[in-house]
């Protein structure tokens, strides 16, 4: 049965080292399974694989899928599985009792080899005090070594190496065991993947990855679901035939050990631009950054992995409400008085920091499009009804029909498209603290509100949002009876970089109708760190959308943007809470369309009919 657990909310069992060892024991002697027939080019042969900066592995392969490995003077016997793809022979085995194994790719034509050492129960500690933590034992670790088969000839000068050739490519894969996945190789260090046969909601997940160039048509790949299940997937991919052969190793969400080889057929679904210099071939992996980083490049198994929930402070609903009562601010102005306190001067930047503050550097200017207007917003299906009197560019009065009380509050508005107002304000005296972000089309009277409040079933300091659709009642405006804004999947597959300032750019990959990923760029404009969240899209007009996400199990922040794809600009609002209170802010960015993946056809209820 497909998973239907919200993103990053699965409470994985903390399998112990002993539990893991017991499960591994069952397959150490037999080796992996495979739905496709194993190949047998290694049976009866011996291989000595020499790696640069790594082990020398001496193998003897028997005829019955058993091998003997001599490594550092120690000998072990294990079961193995083997598959070939063109000139590459791939084999995988465990080492009994050690909770480790090898996934090895050997190019029979060049004798070059890429070796993945994989292991569990690593005991690796990450983070910095006071937020230090130990990685879960079930998370598969990997270390990659490049080497060659020792044939007695001089060692080759050039080995396999890391690459950016897969960066920006998307492939839809169907494996021989029925697993179907959309994989978007959105960064040099990550994959954004939607396992269509695994998750009921087609949610996309980001996992840490490595990409190795074997030759111009052949890529060796892996990903580990570090903050999902900990499972490891590796394969060699022939980009001419779009075929794969590889292995899956680790524990799934049911705590079952998956250890099998697979073949698959794929279709390239797109290639977005990658923006590094043309002479940058990605040979420097991202787990070895130029500057000091928490993950030392020298540490075995080092890799980039964003683990935000590990350091996200948990607050209860009561704690969050107490903080919000103490301080709720909208656009830097404290909320809570109805007479409109004067806006304080922006907080001075700390000494040594440049002026002006850069967080909203590329936002659209605020608009006076609503000033002087009186109107009623009536949302469907028993949704809220609110009357408005807009006094100035920053202050308005509203009356919610639920308590029929006029309140004055701070607001900000943009003109996100011609005659299209996009504004937001706090809903005062609310518990949990709430806000509304409203797209009001002054041409046709349609209106959409993203109704948000603090709190999810998991954290008091995360936000929850929902779209409500309706109409505006205003003199001179005749809103339709039936036509409404609506949820859309038109943006699915599109990728935009959004530059919030000259220092902060993030690429959004709208990977499925209900989830997205964001990727930041390294100093060399390489697509680097990535993460993901659920989201929704609302169509307001052709080329104009609302995009709303909450960084769930991350930092709980909500960002809601009006995307104008005609102007390649977005503008919008942020809503978040912490021990310091509740805050409604602004955000906006200059966009660039980076490309498109043709993936929308894989999603939607009709596909499941």
């Amino acid at each position, binding site marked *: 049965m497909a998973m239907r657990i919200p993103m990053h909310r699965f409470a994985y069992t903390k399998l112990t080292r002993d539990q893991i060892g017991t499960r591994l024991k069952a397959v150490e002697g037999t080796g992996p399974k495979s739905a496709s027939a194993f190949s047998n080019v290694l049976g009866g042969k011996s291989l000595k694989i020499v790696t640069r900066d790594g082990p020398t592995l001496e193998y003897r392969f028997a005829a019955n899928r058993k091998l003997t490995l001599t490594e550092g003077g120690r000998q072990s016997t294990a079961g193995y599985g083997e598959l070939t793809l063109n000139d590459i022979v791939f084999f995988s085995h465990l080492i009994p009792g050690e909770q480790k194994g090898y996934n090895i790719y050997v190019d029979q034509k060049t004798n070059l080899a890429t070796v993945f050492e994989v292991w569990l129960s690593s005991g690796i500690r990450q983070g910095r005090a006071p937020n230090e933590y130990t990685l879960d034992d079930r998370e598969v670790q990997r270390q990659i070594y490049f080497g060659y088969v020792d044939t007695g000839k001089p060692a080759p000068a050039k080995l396999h190496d890391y690459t950016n050739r897969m960066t920006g490519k998307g492939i839809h894969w169907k494996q021989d065991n029925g697993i179907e996945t959309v994989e978007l190789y959105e960064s040099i260090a990550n994959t954004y993947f939607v396992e269509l046969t695994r998750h009921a909601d087609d949610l996309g997940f980001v996992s840490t990855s490595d990409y190795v160039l074997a030759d111009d048509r052949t890529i060796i790949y892996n990903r580990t679901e570090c903050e999902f299940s900990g499972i490891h997937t590796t394969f060699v991919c022939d980009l001419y035939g779009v075929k794969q052969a590889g292995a899956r190793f680790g524990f799934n969400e049911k705590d079952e050990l998956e250890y099998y080889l697979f073949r698959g057929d794929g279709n390239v679904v797109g290639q977005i631009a990658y923006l590094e210099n043309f002479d940058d071939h990605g040979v420097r992996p*991202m787990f070895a*950054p*130029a*500057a*000091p*980083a*928490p*993950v030392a490049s020298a540490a075995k198994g080092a890799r*980039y992995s*964003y683990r*935000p929930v590990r350091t996200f402070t948990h607050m209860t609903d009561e704690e969050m409400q107490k903080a919000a009562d103490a301080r709720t601010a909208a656009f830097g102005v404290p909320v809570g008085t109805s007479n409109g306190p004067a806006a304080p001067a922006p907080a*001075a*930047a*700390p*000494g*040594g*920091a*440049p*002026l002006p503050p*850069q*967080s909203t550097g590329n936002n659209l200017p605020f608009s006076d499009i609503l000033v002087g207007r009186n109107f009623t917003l009536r949302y469907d299906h028993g949704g809220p009804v609110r009357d408005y009197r807009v006094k100035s560019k920053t202050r308005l009065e509203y009356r919610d029909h639920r308590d029929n009380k006029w309140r004055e509050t701070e607001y900000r508005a943009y003109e996100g498209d011609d005659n299209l107002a996009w504004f937001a304000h706090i809903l005062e005296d609310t518990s949990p603290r709430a806000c509304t972000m409203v797209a009001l089309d002054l041409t046709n009277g349609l209106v959409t509100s993203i109704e948000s409040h603090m709190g999810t079933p998991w954290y008091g300091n995360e936000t929850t949002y929902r779209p409500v659709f309706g109409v505006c009642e205003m003199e001179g405006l005749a809103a339709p009876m039936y036509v409404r804004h609506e949820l859309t999947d038109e943006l699915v597959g599109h990728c935009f970089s959004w530059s*919030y300032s*000259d*220092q*902060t750019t*993030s690429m959004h990959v709208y990977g499925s109708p209900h989830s997205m990923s*964001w990727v*930041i760029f*390294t*100093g060399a404009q390489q697509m*680097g*760190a*990535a*993460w993901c969240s659920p989201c929704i899209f609302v169509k307001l007009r052709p080329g104009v959308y609302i995009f709303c996400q909450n*960084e769930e199990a*991350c*930092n709980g*922040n909500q960002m809601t943007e009006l995307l104008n794809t005609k102007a390649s600009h977005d503008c919008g609002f942020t809503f978040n809470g912490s021990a310091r209170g509740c805050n409604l802010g602004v955000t906006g960015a200059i966009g660039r369309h980076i490309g498109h993946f043709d993936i929308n056809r894989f999603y939607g209820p009709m596909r499941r009919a």
Partner: protein
Amino acid sequence: MTTPNSRRSFIRKLGAGASAAVAAVASGKPVSAMADPAQRAAMLEEELKLRSLHQRFEQALDKGLHDEVIGMFADDARVVFNGGIFIGREHGVSRLYRDRFAAGKTGGRMEAAPGFELGADQQRDRVEVSPDCKTAQAEFPYSIQVGVPFETESSLAAMARLHGEGVRTWWEGGLYRLNYRRDAAGNWQISRLEYDTLSRADWRTGKRYAQPIEVVRFTAGYPQDVHGPDALA
């Protein structure tokens, strides 16, 4: 148009070749005018040592070897940077270089932002050694990257930190104003360093144009600002 490279190269050549002739003693008398040839030779020798020390200082800063930089200062040294005074090698000076400079990727050499090169009247490169060769003063031009970590708690900043970034950087040019003195072992140490910033621009290598920026001077000291100065200038 003079390229930044040729301009900087010219400054260095001017400093190395001409300074001996124009270097002046504290009394104002040029070294070349001093009667005692032995004293003249001794002072010129010390000047070369100080130039070598400054070269090592810049190289260490460029490579982020902050402990090596700190080791060049006297126990009671003071550094004036952006309106703050950092006092004492083991305290303020260490805080400035080991904490603030390291976190902000500050100090690495950068070519001057285009259009922001120092003018001819700003190109100081001089060393003045006292007649007793126990103290000295110097001025050298600098052209460096300065930065501060993003203050935001956003996920974008957290992710950037994971790949060694998350720092807002810019270019600064100006003059190092230095005082030196010898320690008990006779080695030169920096007793006072002032970053006399003449120009700042929002520029990084590879960008095609630059714009001037302003930076907030320190308004709070340590420990209120954990990376801040011991006193305000």
